[in-house]
């Protein structure tokens, strides 16, 4: 309703303005066209001159105001190694283009004001100037060459695939309308084969169970990654295009059905370290995360890295949300020990009609029996949890003898 009123007001204003236009035309014919034109010309020149500082100051002031929210600035440092280089490149480009932006705008509006038509003034006849034109062809060319070279070095470093045999963590992100399924290869570090024709309600990723690499693969609800270790994400989609987007890590790559893509990056800040950075920055990060709970956790405490979709994929495109957790290596391994038991195969296929390994003793099972035996000696079994939400983190604290202690910031 408010909008309707606003809209009506605007229409009314428009009508008034049209009347002003008509009146002004009448007035100018009374005062004499030439005088009116000279007047209006002077006004335009002055307004253009006034626009210049207001515009430039507005640009700079607003940039300062939003500085704490922009990635790469304020508390939002990049959380990956290549991200720092990207941010650096961004800043170089910002300085170069910033200078050009300010200088050209000053020239544009100053000349407009300075050379506004005046009585008795005549325009100079200047058709070209070869020297000047060569200068302003060559200077941008050199600047661009500098930016291209810098950019391509960073680009080729960032996009390089891993070398065979390199010690990395490989995970798979499978996108579909409208969710991410994150597959961890398990301890064998190799993702098992998939075929889209095998996808069904009991096999959401279409894993081929004949491939033994699939046996220890498990689905993560949160993307768990160790810090300072190269991660290769295999990115693919089941139905339409999606895009694997980790804003804090400067990672973005389309998920294409039929054509697996990848992105290699190294997270260099754990979630906890990032939170500490936000805390130190202060400001809004010290406010309560939930305004209705003034004594609840602060914003920095609830911060999580996020995974989003950045390629239009249908009506739920804006809701393809997952958390990303970066943890120290030891914690990662402890987590891996715990969650590998959620292997999709062992829990849903093993022993069933369609189990191609029926009757065969699997290595992973032997390992699990040993772990179970060891765990039986412990007082309490660790709960299987992956959710980095605060509730569950507190739940972990309750279990005192838990093998795994998810550090909590409280």
């Amino acid at each position: 309703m408010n909008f309707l009123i606003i809209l009506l007001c605007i229409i009314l204003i428009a009508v008034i303005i049209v009347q002003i236009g008509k009146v002004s035309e009448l007035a100018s014919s009374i005062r004499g066209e030439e005088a009116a034109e000279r007047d209006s010309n002077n006004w335009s020149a002055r307004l253009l001159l006034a626009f210049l500082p207001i515009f430039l100051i507005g640009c700079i002031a607003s940039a300062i105001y939003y500085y704490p929210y922009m990635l790469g600035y304020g508390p939002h440092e990049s959380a990956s190694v290549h991200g720092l280089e990207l941010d650096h490149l961004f800043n170089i480009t910002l300085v170069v283009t910033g200078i050009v932006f300010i200088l050209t705008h000053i020239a544009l509006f100053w000349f407009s004001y300075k050379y506004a038509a005046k009585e008795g003034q005549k325009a100079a006849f200047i058709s070209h100037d070869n020297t000047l034109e060569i200068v302003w062809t060559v200077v941008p060319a050199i600047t661009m060459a500098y930016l291209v070279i810098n950019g391509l070095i960073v680009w080729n470093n960032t996009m390089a695939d891993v070398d065979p045999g390199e010690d990395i963590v490989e995970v798979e992100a499978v996108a579909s309308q409208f969710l991410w399924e994150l597959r961890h290869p398990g301890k064998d570090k190799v993702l098992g084969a998939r075929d889209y024709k095998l996808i069904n309600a009991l096999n959401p990723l279409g894993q081929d169970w004949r491939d033994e690499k699939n046996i220890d693969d498990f689905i993560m609800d949160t993307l768990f990654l160790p810090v300072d270790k190269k991660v290769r994400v295999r990115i693919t989609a089941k139905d339409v295009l999606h895009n694997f987007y980790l804003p804090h890590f400067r990672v973005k790559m389309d998920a294409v059905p039929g054509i697996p893509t990848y992105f290699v990056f190294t997270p260099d800040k754990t979630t906890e370290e990032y939170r500490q950075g936000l805390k130190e920055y202060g400001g809004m990060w010290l406010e309560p995360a939930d305004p209705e709970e003034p004594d609840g956790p602060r914003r920095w405490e609830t911060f999580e890295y996020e995974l989003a979709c950045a390629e239009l994929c249908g009506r739920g495109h804006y809701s393809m949300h997952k958390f990303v957790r970066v943890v120290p290596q030891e914690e990662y391994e402890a987590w891996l020990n715990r969650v590998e038991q959620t292997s999709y195969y062992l829990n849903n296929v093993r022993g069933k009609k369609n189990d191609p390994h029926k009757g065969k003793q699997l290595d992973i099972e032997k390992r699990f029996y040993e772990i179970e035996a060891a765990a039986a000696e412990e007082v309490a079994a660790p709960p299987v949890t992956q959710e980095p939400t605060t509730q569950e983190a507190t739940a972990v604290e309750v279990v005192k003898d838990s093998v795994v202690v998810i550090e909590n910031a409280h």
Partner: protein
Amino acid sequence: MAAVKYTEEEELLILEEGHDPHFHDHHHGDDKYRMSFISHYIFSMDHKMIAKQFLVTGMFWGIMGGLMSLVFRLQLGFPEESLAWLKPVLGKWITISETGVGSLDPEFYYALVTIHGTVIVFFVLTAGLSGTFSNLLIPLQCGARDMASPFLNMLSYWFFFLAGVVMFASLFLSTGPFSGGWTAYPPLSALPQAMSGSGAGMTLWAVSIILFVVSVLLGGVNYITTVLNMRTKGMSMFRLPLTIWAFFITAIIGLLSFPVLFSGVLLLIFDRAIGTSFYLSDIYIGGQALDYVGGSPILYQHLFWFLGHPEVYIIILPAMGIVSEVLSVNSRKPIFGYKAMVYSIAAIAFLSFIVWAHHMFMSGVNPFISNFFVLFTLIIAVPSAVKVFNWISTLYKGNIRFTNAMLFAIGFVSMFISGGLTGIFLGNSAIDIQLHDTYFVVAHFHIVMGVAAFFGMFSGVYHWYPKMFGRFMNPVLGKIHFWVTMIGAYAIFWPMHYTGMAGVPRRYYRFDSFEAFSYFGEINQFITIAAVVVFAAQVLFIINFFYSIWNGKKQTTVNPWGATTLEWTTPIEPGHGNWPGAIPVVHRWAYDYGKDGRDFIPQTEPLGENESESH
């Protein structure tokens, strides 16, 4: 050769009828071109009438596209406010929650975003801009009686009209218009089960685009032929005004790139209708594994952007041409570096064909390929920079007249700088990793090819309005239009850079599912309010436009702006055939302003004895 001397009576006649050294010799035209209402206003073959048809149709689509953006901006800026008041218009696309808050259906939100993009890019800024001014100015400024083929020219408009009718019809489908983004990437656009808009909506979208391509090709062939073959005596290529150069090269780009879109869309139709797998492979959707194998969605992106990138130059080059002309005329100075301007238009046009994959750095193409596209993309900055410096130098030591056309031309230069510079970020693939598909991109292309192209169009409309209608638009309303649009457009798009730098992705219906994207409620409200104000200013422009057709100040002299070019040698309201007598002969380039102490020297005036043609 000295100027022809006329008697006083002849001078008067020329004033009324336009330039014509032999006007009493053969006064043809009137009988031959007399027309009925239908052949004059509807199925007209007169390039001037077709230009007006393109302009008015373009304005209709501009308003439609603008209204669509207002609706989705309201949803984005005020997600908690109720949009229930739009229910009488949008019907089932407004869903009312239990608490009584009406909000836009996400699917329809995407439909609005998609159709907004499609119609503004194709119908407004291609047909409405290039179609209008190429038609109006090519024959007038080259010195031709009409296009090479007036009949094809008429068909060109009617194919455009038909494309519009089909697109308009798709708005009323029960499954909604196409909603997969103006780029229509498959598989989303290929599979009806992926989104309801990908059903009949997509079929109509594809048909509309194909009709539109036909329109562009018919127009383009005509523009090129006319410029090459029908220039008047003495009008060498390097005597052409920059407007014609821009339209000419634009038509060439269009002719080379639109057929590729045509084939891309055709293959998409095959995938949809007859089960081919050009773009589809390994798809599991709606609980079903589909049979398509071996296709590549990326192939479509290549075909699309092979048009899509040149398309942005198809949009901006005519605006550049118009602005070059308007800046020069109103500074009373020659355009600075005429030949450099021509070469830079040509360079931009050439480069525009080898940069398309810079839209696809993050789409899964081999990262090695991107090296070439980064290089060529950033090279485009050089001719673009040359153009900007030349425009600014044109102002230097001028005697500037701030007509509305001039104000919009200056605004164009400002927008082109602002939007062009952010292209340097995006064209560098490494930075694009972070900025790709964020609001930074939205800000970039809206400023550089949206707002800037609109400014070029406004500049042209204000400048050549007297040529079209024999009257002037109201200057005060025009100035209000300019200032509100200038400030308002920056208010809309400048803050989007910040949300983009914060990583907020484009094409999000809501931002609250992600903590990282949820901090910009204020910015989004501000942008929405600015958009409403700017839209109101455009309504003002439309009012001014139609009001002035009948009530504007009458044009009393044939050459109100004191311009050198040929269109101002025609009568105030030129009939079919443009010049009542013989076509004028050209003796010099189009930019002799302020030469030898004279305010301007028309192109029709022969060179003086010791005068050299200087450019």
